[in-house]
């Protein structure tokens, strides 16, 4: 399993990291471990698809966590 962080969420953390898979692990659990406050989070993507914080991850998943972003 891999976790990728973007923009301000990289500060004091990392860009990309292998994550030890535990059966039943949710996105929320990982955010908690990383000390990422839910209000900071904009989009969560697993394997290029939007998911919610309750999503249960699989062994080969790639999770991407973005802060609230804008642009255009």
């Amino acid at each position, binding site marked *: 399993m891999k976790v990728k962080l973007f923009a301000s969420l990289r500060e004091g953390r990392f860009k990309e990291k292998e994550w030890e898979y535990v059966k039943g692990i949710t996105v929320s659990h990982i955010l908690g471990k990383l000390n990422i406050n839910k209000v900071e989070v904009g989009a969560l993507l697993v394997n290029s698809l939007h998911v919610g914080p309750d999503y249960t991850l699989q062994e080969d998943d790639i999770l991407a966590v*973005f802060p609230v972003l804008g*642009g255009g």
Partner: protein
Amino acid sequence: MPDKIYRINMTDLKVTNEEVPEQWKGLGGRGLTSTIVAQEVKPTCHPLGKYNKLVFAPGLLSGTTCANSGRLSAGAKSPLTGGIKECNAGGTAAANFARLGIKVLIIDGLPEKDTFYSLKVDKNGVTIKEETELGGKGNYEVVKNLTEKLGKKIGIISMGPVGEMRLAAANISVRTRDDYIRSLGRGGLGAVMGSKKIKYITIDDSDTPGVPIADPKKFKAAGKIFAKALAEHPVSGGALKNYGTDVLVNILNEAGGLPTKNFRYGKFAGHEKISGETMHDTIAGRSGKVSHGCHTGCVIQCSQVYNDKDQKYMTSGFEYETIWAFGADCCIDDLDVIAQADHLMDDIGVDSIETGVMIGVAMEAGIIPFGDGQGMLGLLKEIGSGTPLGRILGCGAAAVGKAYGITRVPVVKNQGIPAYDPRSVKGIGITYATSPMGADHTAGYTIATNILKVGGFVDPLKKEGQIELSRNLQIATAFIDSTGLCIFVAFPIIDIPAGFTAMVDMVNARFGISLTADDITKLGKQILRTEHEFNLAAGFTNKNDRLPEFFEDPVLPHNAVWDFTDEEIDSFWNF
């Protein structure tokens, strides 16, 4: 002093002014330029001919203390699309016009003599002069020359050599207070300015009383609430300031919606190298400015000042769409090369989105290979110097596709499709198909809801809800584009209701009127319909509201296809 309309007739070189008629009083920015173009321009006219008009209008809130209110609208019949066009940009000109009490500047006719002219706008009105010195010069030199002569406070609107050549990708430049350049980019309005032979307009707003406010107390109170909403929202208060709009590279790549290699793939291997995160670190490491406002009063500051390796200025207002076009779409994973392109395009005066999409098509055609940064810069120079190939390239993506017999040409109504793949971000596809402007992401920015999860979430890969989403956003945007507010205020006002109310209150307090939220929706609808009707009268039909057929081919990683039926797309106009 009531606001005035100035008419500049370039055929007999005369200027007149008149009072604002009742029906135009509540209009500004896009609402006003589109209304005037629809009422006064013959829809079937040649965009470069005597019947077209070039209209400049500040927004309803421009020139006031309201945050982010300095956008200037320009309108005309577009030489690129053949339909109506409005584009807006920062810089100082909108506030300069508003302080002079100029509601709108309408330029019509064509001069007979083969010479350039300038317009001098100040408290005494507008003066037309022959311009013998700056013809052929780039925008940076024009700005430098004029600020040296006229001082640092002068507002400048100018065109580069590509506008002089009247090529369909030419844009119009607006000076910022610190001598950078912002662009009225899309749709070739620089070519219309070129046809009227106006090299530049200077605007001197000294000795003016400032913008009158009907209810100053109410205005001030609403202004505070509005500014607070902008400061509090994470997008307008932080993300845009730190990473600029280029922060979108990584999220679009992750979602598989980053068009790559002329819209072949949805992900780009070099995404990290051209991302907002990399740009942030590069700028910080070269003593540039990570955040910068394109006009006084911008508190969001999505712009930046990008320096080269020797810490010398390269470009400012370095946007996601430009970086995407030259980066992912042309497979050039080098921000410095893209920054050079951005500088060059500002100088010669071409739209960076149209030109980037065009280079992707030129690569498809084999003029240069994908990924060839130096070759790309060479082609831009050809446009600036007007070689025969350069002139074809300077007419945009559709023209190059035609000249080289290519079918993979990402355009709608001849305008290049920006930065978001409509197959994997379906809402934006509806905006591209239906916007009277041609493919324009800003016209109804569904990315907020489809990708960023601001203002709710509509699944980007499903058709459900996209038409309604695009319609609601296009209506709201038509209004915001009329206020002079930067479209990025939409992020906070979607999420913070008090911010929205404050925006309406400011417009009301400025003019002593009492618009409601319903009136705003009505006005937005009216603007869209006016623009749509102009296009129909110009010869468009619903068949022009379609994406190119290559979008029926699946795009990785989702194998997504463009699968809206004609009936579904046409239902957009049921309002």
